[in-house]
């Protein structure tokens, strides 16, 4: 994505003379005092010369030795000029003004910052914890909090007989586990007063919630009057973990975030690191990445289609889509070695070359798959039950998209052409020819149609990639000449220089230059962004993951108001969140 030009950013000084402009690569961040920050954000949003209408992300960075300690970072996007800007401010007295009155999408991001750093937001409507439970006493992402947490509870394994020497090495002391009362307090804090007849809990361990999302409905009969969502039932602390490991070691964690589209997350992450480290990826690796990304996108959309139809009672589609998913998983297993969380990408290329016959298998899949899409569409698209349950439900308007920072298919279903593959083409996306399907109304049915068409477009991209890869047969797939790129296994065992380099990179990590970068990729679930702050060490100082599903899910309580509980299942299915990514 092109960032705002330096000259254009300098012009803001006419209105706000106190801003400082910092630049790393093309990323431009404006730094301003706390008391001016809200005016600046308002100006950027409303001024016709800038019109940064879309909210992308808000996060914090902890600098324990600096006073004030925390820095807030806002990232905005201008749909009109197609450019991004970053705004930074220091949180004096550990508090910041809320911006929920400018962008509603900031509500959860501010809650998350409060949960993780303990920063207060003046004027926030209900500042409670986002991921942890309400009685949790610590703020985990602060630099002085240990990664393992405070192990103060005796919680031994029940499978080990008492008094005997444990069969494996483990610590009987564990971090504190909440009680059911703690969870009740959390629920009460989230929805302080009951307005209608009955409060219904849906989830977190319910097959219809696509993972572990906890919904609270305030019901009047069957109609939802008020709704709240509690996240954090899969909060594993990936952001904290990645502050302690090298850049390469973070790659497996990106798999486990959005486990349905692991390769897309990999690619988004390695692209961000490559931008930070200035690595040029070989041509062949770019095409392999693009091809696998699109295969993974089809795979992800198939899982969505299967579970979405299953939620609506169409069990057949679930069995059909899983038949095709198995084929794609087999292709990915053949290429990467692992079915689901493949960790196939490396900084500077891909892990292995394509095996013999991989392209033939994919070619066969391309020939076979269109008839299968037709099969699904024959069953669903004009099905009366399908139409009745989907049309007119959960209409998202264009303003809502900008207000909540909605990205991905959900934004495109509402007619907003926001696609990172087109706006900021990484890998080989600028060389392939494809179209972006857009919805007109923005309801569940439009999102269904957009995803179906996207699968066809992905197939087109794969076709072009296979054609190109047949020409690039013997090219390099990993830029091992670069000092930051790990050598291949073969090189490591056969040359002493490569072995030394391998050792250095694995032990000390990639010594990235000091700077900060925000880069994103188009995940099937929306924009997956990585904001990396580097302090010149072998590991990231702060790695913020901007999750598409996290922001997309935020509009759910708005949309479900006035509808029935049965619609909640459909609406959730069409928003398609993955909890591994929303909670990280």
């Amino acid at each position, binding site marked *: 994505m092109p960032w705002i030009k330096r000259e254009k950013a300098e012009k803001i000084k006419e209105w706000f003379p106190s801003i400082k402009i910092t630049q790393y690569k093309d990323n431009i961040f404006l730094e301003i005092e706390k008391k001016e920050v809200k005016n600046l954000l308002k100006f950027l949003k409303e001024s016709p010369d800038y019109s940064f209408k879309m909210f992308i992300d808000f996060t914090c960075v902890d600098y324990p030795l600096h006073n004030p300690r925390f820095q807030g970072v806002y990232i905005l996007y201008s749909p009109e000029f197609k450019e991004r800007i970053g705004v930074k401010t220091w949180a004096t007295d550990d508090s910041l003004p809320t911006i929920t009155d400018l962008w509603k999408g900031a509500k959860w991001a501010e809650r998350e910052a409060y949960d993780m750093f303990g920063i207060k937001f003046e004027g926030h409507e209900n500042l409670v914890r986002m991921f942890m439970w309400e009685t949790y006493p610590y703020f985990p992402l602060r630099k002085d909090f*240990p990664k393992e947490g405070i192990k103060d509870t005796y919680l031994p394994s029940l499978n080990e007989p008492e008094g005997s020497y444990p069969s494996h090495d483990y610590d009987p002391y564990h971090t504190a586990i*909440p009680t059911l009362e703690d969870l009740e307090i959390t629920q009460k804090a989230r929805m302080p007063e009951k307005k209608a007849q009955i409060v219904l809990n849906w989830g977190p*361990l319910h097959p219809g919630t696509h993972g572990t999302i906890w919904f609270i409905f305030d019901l009047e009969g069957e109609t939802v009057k008020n709704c709240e969502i509690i996240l954090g*039932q899969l909060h594993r602390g990936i952001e904290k973990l990645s502050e302690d490991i090298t850049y390469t070691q973070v790659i*497996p964690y990106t798999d486990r975030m959005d486990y349905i589209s692991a390769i897309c997350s990999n690619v988004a992450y390695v692209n961000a690191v490559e931008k930070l480290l200035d690595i040029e990826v070989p041509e062949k690796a770019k095409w392999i990445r693009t091809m696998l990304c699109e295969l993974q996108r089809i795979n992800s959309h198939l899982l969505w289609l299967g579970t979405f139809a299953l939620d609506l009672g169409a069990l057949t589609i679930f069995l059909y889509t899983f038949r095709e998913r198995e084929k794609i*998983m087999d292709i990915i297993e053949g290429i990467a070695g692992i079915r689901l969380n493949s960790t196939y990408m490396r900084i500077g290329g891909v892990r292995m070359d394509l095996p013999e016959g991989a392209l033939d298998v994919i070619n066969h899949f391309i020939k076979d798959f269109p008839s299968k899409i037709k099969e699904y569409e024959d069953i669903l698209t004009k099905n009366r039950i399908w139409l009745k349950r989907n049309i007119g439900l959960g209409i998202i308007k264009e303003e809502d998209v900008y207000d909540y920072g909605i990205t991905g298919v959900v934004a495109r279903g509402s007619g907003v052409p926001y696609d990172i593959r087109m706006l900021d083409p990484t890998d080989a996306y600028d060389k392939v020819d494809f179209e972006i399907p857009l919805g007109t109304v923005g309801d569940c049915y439009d999102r269904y149609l957009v995803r179906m068409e996207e699968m066809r477009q992905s197939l087109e991209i794969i076709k072009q990639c296979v054609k190109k890869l047949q020409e690039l047969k013997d090219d390099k797939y990993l830029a091992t000449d670069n000092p930051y790129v790990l050598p291949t296994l073969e090189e490591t065992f056969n040359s002493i220089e490569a072995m030394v380099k391998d050792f250095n990179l694995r032990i000390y990590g990639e010594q990235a230059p000091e700077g900060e970068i925000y880069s994103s990729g188009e995940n099937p679930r929306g924009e997956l962004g990585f904001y990396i702050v580097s302090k010149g060490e072998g590991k990231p100082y702060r790695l913020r993951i901007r999750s598409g599903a996290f922001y997309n899910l935020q509009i759910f309580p708005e949309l479900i108001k006035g509808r029935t509980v049965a619609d909640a299942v459909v609406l959730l299915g069409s928003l398609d969140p993955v*909890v591994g990514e929303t909670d990280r």
Partner: protein
Amino acid sequence: MAIIGGNNGIILTTVEEVLSWGRRNSLWPVSIGLACCAIEMMHTAASRFDTDRMGIIFRGSPRQSDVLIVAGTVVNKVAPMLKLIYDQMPDPKWVISMGGCSSGGGPFPTYSTLQGIDRIIPVDVYVPGCPPTPQALLWGIHQLQKKIKAKQEGKELKEIPVRTPKASFPVKG
């Protein structure tokens, strides 16, 4: 179990044996998905691997099921809820811990992750992998069936076949 007189249709057996036979061939798991492993669990249940042929049918309610497949990372916040679901299941009940995260924390040694599901509920079978393939989960289910059978015969299933790896050499180009 003994068949008397060829094809007369008379079978002599004990009640215990019939119960055990019935139990191990109709394991009904609770359909709870927690993380990545849940996707592989869905694949095990879906068209290709098709657990229905072994009498494994996923149930929505813990009251109707007798196996809990813990598929995915259990974080501290969800641990009391999972314990609640385990307590709601009627006896006899078994637990399969699927994947590295639920068996021992896996790749997440952090402040928010439960380091092993066996700290809150007893586990019968651990399935390794991150995530385990559907074949691995089927192996775990078969292992559980063997365990139920051994228990009925008054034995404890002790030996789990472990294949010793062959000596490995670096890959050469």
